[in-house]
């Protein structure tokens, strides 16, 4: 009897007679043993994928879930001078109490200082305390007119631009607006955005990610947080 055609044989004939399968019906080109082995493997694969795929999707789902835009009132407009920052606390992550709060430095926009052409419609400058290096909390030192990070020595100027240390870009900012609550003009803080070294706006990036030049493509905007 001639040898059975191997399943790895690319030139196996499509005719039953040429396959030399013992006891084959007309039209059979696959041995029953081979067919059963394949069926068992396929059933096992389906069973395994039926729980691994949903579990994987469940785990990576938050990557694609967007954050809602909210406006938070931080105080009346006369609370904020135009030459010094006032620290205010806003809720960055709702529902977890103190751990979800973050510090934002707010001052009124000053045409003499804020000369960049990109930020036309934010009446107040709100700068995050999250260092652009690795996310430690920076503090505003009024005497030096500098933001200083305690962790790795990042220093930023009055506009949040890097002066010294490892940060790859300026401090992030937040959108601001003024709304009248019971006749009193109040400052509200909205979503976060990142700026490059010319203070041009970008979708929020995480700390440590440069957005000048190729950086904006190497560290793309994510679906979980957009401006």
């Amino acid at each position, binding site marked *: 009897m001639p040898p059975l055609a191997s399943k790895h044989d690319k030139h196996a004939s499509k005719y039953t007679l040429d396959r030399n399968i013992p006891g084959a019906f007309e039209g059979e080109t696959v041995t029953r043993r081979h067919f059963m082995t394949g069926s068992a493997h396929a059933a096992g694969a389906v069973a395994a994928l039926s729980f691994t795929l949903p579990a994987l999707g469940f*785990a990576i789902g*938050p*990557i694609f*879930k967007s954050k809602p835009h909210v406006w938070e009132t931080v105080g009346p407009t006369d609370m904020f001078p135009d030459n010094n920052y006032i620290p205010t606390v806003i809720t960055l992550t709702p529902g977890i109490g103190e751990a979800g709060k973050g510090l934002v430095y707010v001052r009124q926009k000053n045409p003499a200082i804020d000369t960049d052409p990109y930020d036309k419609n934010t009446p107040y400058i709100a700068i995050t305390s999250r260092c652009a290096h*690795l996310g430690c909390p920076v503090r505003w030192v009024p005497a030096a007119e500098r933001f200083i990070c305690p*962790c790795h020595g990042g220093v930023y100027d009055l506009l949040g631009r890097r002066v010294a240390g490892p940060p790859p870009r300026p401090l992030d900012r937040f959108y601001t607006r003024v709304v009248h609550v019971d006749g009193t003009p109040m400052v509200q803080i909205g979503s976060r955005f990142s700026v490059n070294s010319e203070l041009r706006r970008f979708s929020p990036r*995480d*700390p440590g990610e440069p957005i000048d030049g190729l950086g904006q493509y190497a*560290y793309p905007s*994510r679906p979980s947080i957009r401006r």
Partner: protein
Amino acid sequence: MPKIPTPPIPAPLKAPPPRPQESNGAVRPVDHAANAGTAVVDWVDERTSLSGAARWMMFRKVPKGTNWFYTLGSATMFAFLNQAVTGVFLAMYYRPDASGGAYESIRYVTDDVFLGQFVRGMHKWGSTVMVVLVFLHMGRTFFFGAYKYPRELNWVIGVVLLILTMVMSFTGYLLPFDQRAFWATQVGVNINGTGPLVGPYLSDFLRGGSEIGATTLSRFYAIHMLLVPGLIAALIGAHLYLVAKLGTTAPPWSKAEKDPELRESEA
């Protein structure tokens, strides 16, 4: 039935010799009781054949010159077992609640639970000990050349175990949810984010969103107590199997035994 050897009991405590009418070779209940341990082991072994595997694992030949440096692997394993046991019992008190519950549960363990500070301390300092031992074990393997053929795969498994140990250290650091935990995780996640293209998505995956929050804590807790310990335990099993299968290496300074025939001819 095989008899186990008699332990050295002082004379006054020894059982009296059998009376004449009893010493007719009959097996008394006390003999059964004395051999109960052997009988149980025999019963299990008859149905599982495990004693062969146990002998294969435990009674191995080791090369001449084997020394204390060869115990670093076992030391690492015992450090892991310490982490596993203390971790299981810490989980009985811990709550992965980002709005204050996690911090409070750790404070309760440390301040109020009997031996709580000790067990938490064992887990906290044990983690550092484990990392140190892993590196010493790795250094021993490297400097003794024990990673070479045919043991390359065991080196690879060991490197995966090193990475998993680091993952344990990283995820465990967040769990107390105090200031240090929060900011250290902030920095750690952002370091992950500095990888081009995939980094930002990796950060979102680790945090379960764009900011550290309740999802981050429960996610780190699940990784720390379920996912990675299971992987480490399985890989330690594979690591040990290969050690038993391939045997250990002689230290690099020990000379090879000369062929007996060659030695005779030289003499």
